């Protein structure tokens, strides 16, 4: 076998995988989205070619509101992750080399516990008689504290908590590579510490910021578990709407249309992410 055919064979495997497990199901979902709801048949779909489901997504106020609130919650949570994650990543990158593996392990440590259990734990913290409120009452800081659980704040907290490692790790990777002598040069040329950070550290860590933000933002937009468990009924997110249409209303075509729109919406940021990666690779060469 020539090296060219073996190379092709190696490339063919992931392509075949994608074709069978992504392209084919996607075609099925698209076909369902173009059909109409038929509660009497199994599955509850009458195939056809109707754009009615897509039209409803853009005209029905509920869906538009869900889209907008998903984007807003994802954006705010991403910002929260960035503000929290940047100092963390910076501190780890500036720690002595011997301590870095331990600190990085602590960042990744939550993954050792199931995601679902970790989100459930937040219910125990944030509910009306949860640990947070018990503490507030016990310490006398507040006699009648409000309940965070069931609000958008709880969803933000949950997303920031769950996705923080995805922000810290790419930021750490770029900050760790940052040559310290560049900061010394900036200082030597008259830059105060804050100016050195803004003109040298921040622009040079931009690839890490973009990577971290997209790694948080993209999955956060379609997040279902966190808003369902922590957000209660008042929080509207598109992932939850999709779930409700599919399981509660059994409206498969509409749920499929939501899924396809979500995918199309996220292609933009993903393409941006890949372009950024390609650019930083180019720069590395």
């Amino acid at each position: 076998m020539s090296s060219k055919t073996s190379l092709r064979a190696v490339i063919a495997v992931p392509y075949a995988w994608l074709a069978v497990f992504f392209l084919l199901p996607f075609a099925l979902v698209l076909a369902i989205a173009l059909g109409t709801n038929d509660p009497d048949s199994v599955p509850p779909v009458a195939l056809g070619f109707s754009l009615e489901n897509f039209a409803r997504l853009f005209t029905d106020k509920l869906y538009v509101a869900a889209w907008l609130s998903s984007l807003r919650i994802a954006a705010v949570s991403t910002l929260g992750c960035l503000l929290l994650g940047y100092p963390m990543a910076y501190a780890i990158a500036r720690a002595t080399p011997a301590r870095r593996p331990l600190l990085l392990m602590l960042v990744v440590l939550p993954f050792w516990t199931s995601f679902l259990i970790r989100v459930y734990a937040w219910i125990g913290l944030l509910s009306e008689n949860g640990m947070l409120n018990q503490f507030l009452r016990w310490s006398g800081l507040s006699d009648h504290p409000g309940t965070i659980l069931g609000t958008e704040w709880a969803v933000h907290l949950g997303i920031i908590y769950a996705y923080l490692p995805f922000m810290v790790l790419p930021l750490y990777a770029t900050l760790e590579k940052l040559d310290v002598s560049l900061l010394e040069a900036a200082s030597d040329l008259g830059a105060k510490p804050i100016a050195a950070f803004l003109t040298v550290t921040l622009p040079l860590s931009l690839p890490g910021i973009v990577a971290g933000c997209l790694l948080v933002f993209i999955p956060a937009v379609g997040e279902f578990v966190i808003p369902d468990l922590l957000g209660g009924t008042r929080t509207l997110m598109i992932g939850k709407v999709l779930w409700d249409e599919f399981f509660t209303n059994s409206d498969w075509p509409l749920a499929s249309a939501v899924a396809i729109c979500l995918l199309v919406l996220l292609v933009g940021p993903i393409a941006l992410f890949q372009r950024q990666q390609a650019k930083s690779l180019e720069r590395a060469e």
Partner: protein
Amino acid sequence: MTAPIVKIEGIAKRYGTVQAVAGVDLEIERGELFALLGGSGCGKTTLLRMLAGLETPDSGRIVIDGQDMTGVPPHRRPVNMMFQSYALFPHMSVAANVGYGLRREGLPKPEIATRVAEALALVQLQTLGERRPSQLSGGQRQRVALARALVKRPKLLLLDEPLAALDRKLREGTRFEMVRLQEQLGLTFVVVTHDQEEAMSMASRLAVMNAGRIVQTGTPHDLYEHPATRFVADFIGVANIFEVAASRWMALRPEKIRLAAQRPDTAHAVSGKIVDIAYEGDRSLYRVLTESRGVMLVSTTNVTRTRESLFQRGQSVWLGWNDDWGQTLDE
């Protein structure tokens, strides 16, 4: 005589158990090109970084132009440094790199543009202002680093191994270029180098460092002809060092020894046999195994073109010298 621009008094710096700089006193005159010379780990770079403010001394004082700068952070010192790695900002153009220090001063844009253009012209890079550092050759990057360090007209320009990353041919040309710039601008340069040839040919004065201390300070001529210690005699150039009395040594440069077939009429003479010859064109180096002083190095300048004037390997020869041709050392 004007006051020295730099006064270093009893500076010491320790890293863990390593005494990097162990009590250094030094004065650097205004407008001179001063070199700190020494092997790796001798403390020369630490001393330079303390002048820049990038390291804080454990004890001692640094006075620059009459002002105590010991605890002053780097961004408030009238000092700029050219880093060994150049430390150019990869995300900025050449012009932006050179103008960085001026922008930090908040100068008006037109003035920055003029001064950046002047600095780039000084190092002959006026056409490359828009390039990124990654698009430049090693020699061009070196000149950008130099332009960026001198554009603010610092009272003191510190250069950490400025020529180490260049190849040999480029290094010699750049050496003269830097001396020309230093004289033209009238700035005070402090150059750190491990290369004694570089230090000797560039500096107006130099200090030889060893184990965190300055062993000797002087002009290149002082250090070569009148080394104070065996370390300096051995570190700068080549010397035959031999004991002449109890705890007294003689350091004798190879070119100061007279090489002859017959016993020369010098105060001292030893006979020996040539064991090795290194013919370098302009001069020849002979290793001579003498009867009383072991192997000695002698060099001759090849002023004639005839082969007959050269000595042959295995030939019996005489080496002669007078007492004042070499330096007597006590330690």
